[in-house]
C-alpha cells in the first residue's frame, strides 16, 4: 500500500514529465550527433521566439480555464495589425509602434469576445478554444485572401498577388529582422546570448508574475480553485474570466510579434496555426498541468521541449536509419505530451 502510494505520488508529481523529457532529450541528443553549442544556440533562439507565447498560457490555467488553445487568435490579431501596417506602408519606428497599438487593441477586443464565449461553456473551455481558433482562422483567411484588394484597397502592391486580390503567401519582414535580436549580443564561446531579447522574455515573465500577485491575481487564483465559493466571497467570476482571456490574448499577440520578428519572414496563412499546440506542449513539458501552471514551468518547459524537438529528427534518422521516423517521433512527443497530461490530470483533479 505504502509503496503504491509512493509510486502514485511520483507519477503525479510535477517532476515526472520534466524528468522524462530530460532523459529523452539527453539520449536523443547523443544519437543526433549535434554539437552542444548548436543545440544550445537553437534552444536560446526558441526561448526568445516562443517564450512569451508560452507565458501567455499561464494565467488562464491559474484561473481554472485550462489550456488556452485560442492564443492563435492573439497571434492572428497581431498578424492583422502587421499586415495593415505593411499594407499602408507605415515604416520604421512609427510602424512598429502602430503594430503594437493595433495588435493590443485588436487582441483585447478578441480576448473579450473569447471570454464572453467561454463564460457560456464552463467546463468545456479547452475544446471550445480549439474550435474558436479554427473559426477565427477562416475569418482571417476571408479578410486577407478575399477582402484585401476587393473591399479593402491596399496601397502597398508588393504584398498583394499579381492578380490584385489577396495577400501573398509570404511577406518579408526584412526591415525588422536582426534589429532587436542582435541587441546586446553576448558571445560565450560559440554560444550567442541575445541579452536584450532574453531580458524582454524575462520582463514578460515578470509581468505574469506581477499580475498573479495583484488583487486581480488573487481573484484569478480564487476562481481557479473554486468558482462557486468565489462567487459567494463577492468576486465577479464572469468578469474575471473575461479579463483573464483578454490578458492571455494580448500576451499571445506580443508573443507572436516576437516570434515573427525573430524569424524575419511572415507566412501569412500558416504562421499562427501551430502556436497553440506547440506552446501548450512546451508548458506541460515543464511540469505544469491543466490545473496548475507556474512561470518556472513555462521557462523550463521551453528548454526541455524544444531541445527534444531539435535533436529528435536527427536522432531518429541516425538511430533507425530512416529520416521519417525521427519526424514521427517528434510529432508524437508534442501531441502525446498533451494527451498524457489530460489523461493523468483528471485523476489528479478528482482527489
Amino acid at each position, binding site marked *: 500500500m505504502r509503496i503504491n502510494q509512493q509510486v502514485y505520488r511520483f507519477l503525479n508529481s510535477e517532476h515526472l514529465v520534466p524528468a522524462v523529457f530530460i532523459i529523452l532529450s539527453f539520449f536523443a541528443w547523443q544519437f543526433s550527433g549535434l554539437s552542444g553549442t548548436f543545440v544550445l544556440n537553437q534552444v536560446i533562439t526558441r526561448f526568445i521566439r516562443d517564450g512569451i507565447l508560452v507565458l501567455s498560457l499561464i494565467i488562464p490555467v491559474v484561473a481554472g480555464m485550462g489550456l488556452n488553445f485560442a492564443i492563435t487568435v492573439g497571434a492572428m490579431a497581431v498578424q492583422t495589425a502587421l499586415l495593415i501596417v505593411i499594407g499602408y506602408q507605415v515604416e520604421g519606428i512609427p510602424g512598429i509602434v502602430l503594430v503594437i497599438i493595433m495588435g493590443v487593441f485588436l487582441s483585447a477586443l478578441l480576448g473579450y469576445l473569447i471570454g464572453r464565449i467561454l463564460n457560456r461553456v464552463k467546463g468545456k473551455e*479547452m475544446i471550445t478554444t480549439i474550435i474558436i481558433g479554427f*473559426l477565427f482562422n477562416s475569418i482571417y483567411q476571408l479578410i486577407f485572401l478575399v477582402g484585401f484588394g476587393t473591399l479593402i484597397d491596399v496601397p502597398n502592391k508588393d504584398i498583394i498577388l499579381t492578380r490584385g486580390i489577396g495577400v501573398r503567401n509570404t511577406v518579408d519582414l526584412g526591415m525588422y529582422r536582426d534589429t532587436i535580436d542582435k541587441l546586446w549580443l553576448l558571445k560565450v564561446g560559440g554560444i550567442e546570448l541575445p541579452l536584450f531579447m532574453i531580458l524582454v522574455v524575462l520582463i514578460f515573465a515578470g509581468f505574469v508574475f506581477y499580475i498573479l500577485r495583484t488583487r486581480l491575481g488573487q481573484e484569478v487564483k480564487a476562481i481557479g480553485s473554486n468558482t462557486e465559493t468565489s462567487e459567494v466571497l463577492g468576486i465577479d467570476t464572469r468578469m474575471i474570466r473575461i479579463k483573464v482571456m483578454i490578458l492571455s490574448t494580448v500576451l499571445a499577440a506580443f508573443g507572436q510579434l516576437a516570434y515573427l520578428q525573430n524569424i524575419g519572414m511572415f507566412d501569412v496563412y500558416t504562421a499562427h496555426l501551430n502556436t497553440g*499546440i506547440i506552446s501548450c506542449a512546451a508548458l506541460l513539458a515543464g511540469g505544469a498541468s491543466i490545473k496548475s501552471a507556474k512561470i518556472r514551468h513555462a521557462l523550463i518547459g521551453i528548454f526541455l521541449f524544444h531541445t527534444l524537438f531539435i535533436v529528435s529528427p536527427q536522432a531518429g534518422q541516425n538511430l533507425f536509419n530512416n529520416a521519417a521516423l525521427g519526424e514521427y517521433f517528434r510529432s508524437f512527443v508534442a501531441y502525446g505530451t498533451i494527451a498524457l497530461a*489530460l489523461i493523468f490530470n*483528471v485523476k489528479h483533479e478528482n482527489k
Partner: protein
Amino acid sequence: MRNFNIKPPQIIISLFLITLVFLAYALEMNLVILFNESLVKLVMNGVLVLSLIPMLNVGAGMNFGLPVGIIGGLLGMCLAVNFRMTGLYGFFAALLFSLVICAVLGWIYGLILNRVKGREEIAGTFIGFSFIPLMNFFWTLAPFQNREMLYPIGGQGLRPRISLENYFNNILNNLYVIRLGDIEIPLGLIGFFALIALFLYWYFKTKIGRATIAVGENEAFSKLSGINIAQTRLLAIMISTIIAGWGICVYAQSYGFIQLYDEPLSMAFPAISAILIGGSTGKKAFIFEAVLGTYLLQSMYLFTVPIANAILIPELTEILRSFITYGIILYALLVRERRRNMV
C-alpha cells in the same frame, strides 16, 4: 413519438442549400447527376457520421477521437489488400479485419475515456492527434509484402495512397444499381448504409441499448438502478470505433484509395458538424439526425464549389465552408452548455 424540432443551424443550412439548388438550376447544371452524386456522398460519409451516435448517446460527447476508429479500418483494408483479396470477398474481409482491430482499439480507447469522464472531447482530440504519428511509425515499418502498396522506389513502407482499383474499388457503389431514367440509385451502397442504421436502431432497442441511453441521459440514475456504467460506456465506445472503421472502408471503396498517414486527422470535424447540422444537440443523437445532417452538409459541399466557381470569387467557397463547419460546432457547444446551465 419523438419530435424533431427544427433548430437554427438546420434552417440556415437548408435555406443555403435551397438557394444553391436554384442557382445550380439557373446555371443549367445537371441536377440529376448532382442528385446521383449526393446519394453516393451521403453514404460515403454517412457511415462515419453514424459512428458518432453510440458515443454521443452514452454521454461520452462528440467523438473528436474519430481517427482512432478510422485507423483501425485502414489497417483492416491494408491487410485485405496485402493478401490480395479482391471484389466483395476482399471488401468483406476488410470489414472483418477492421472489426477485430477496431474492437481492440475501441476497448483501449474506451478504457482511457472512462478515466477522463467529462473531458472526453478534448482528450479524444489529442488521443487522435498523438495516435497518428504512432501509426506513421507503423505504416513506414510494417512488413507488408504486396508491392502495389509499397513505395514505388524504396520498396519499404506503405504509400500515402493505395489504389483500390485492382481490389474492391466502388464495389458497393456499383452493386445493384437501379436506373430510373437518368437517376441512378446504388441499392447496394444504400443497403449497406441502411443495414448499419438498422443495426444501431436495433441496438438502442435492446436491453443494453436502453441502458446506454439511460447512462447518457442520467448517469447517476443509472448507477442507482444498478447499471454497470463503465461497461456500458465501454461497449458504446467500442461500437462507435467499429462503425468508424467500417465507415472508412465504405469511404475508401467509394473514393478508390486507402489514404494513410495524416489523412485520418481531417475526418473528424466534418463528421461532427454533419451530425450537429442534423439537429443533434451534441448530447444525444438520433439516426435520422445523422442521415439528415450528412445529406445537408455533403450536398452543400457538392453544390458550393461548382456554383461558386461560376459566379463568385472562387476562394470564397472553401473559406465559407470551413467557416460553416467550425461555426456550427461552436454553436453546438454554446447551446448545449447553456441548456445544461439552465436545468
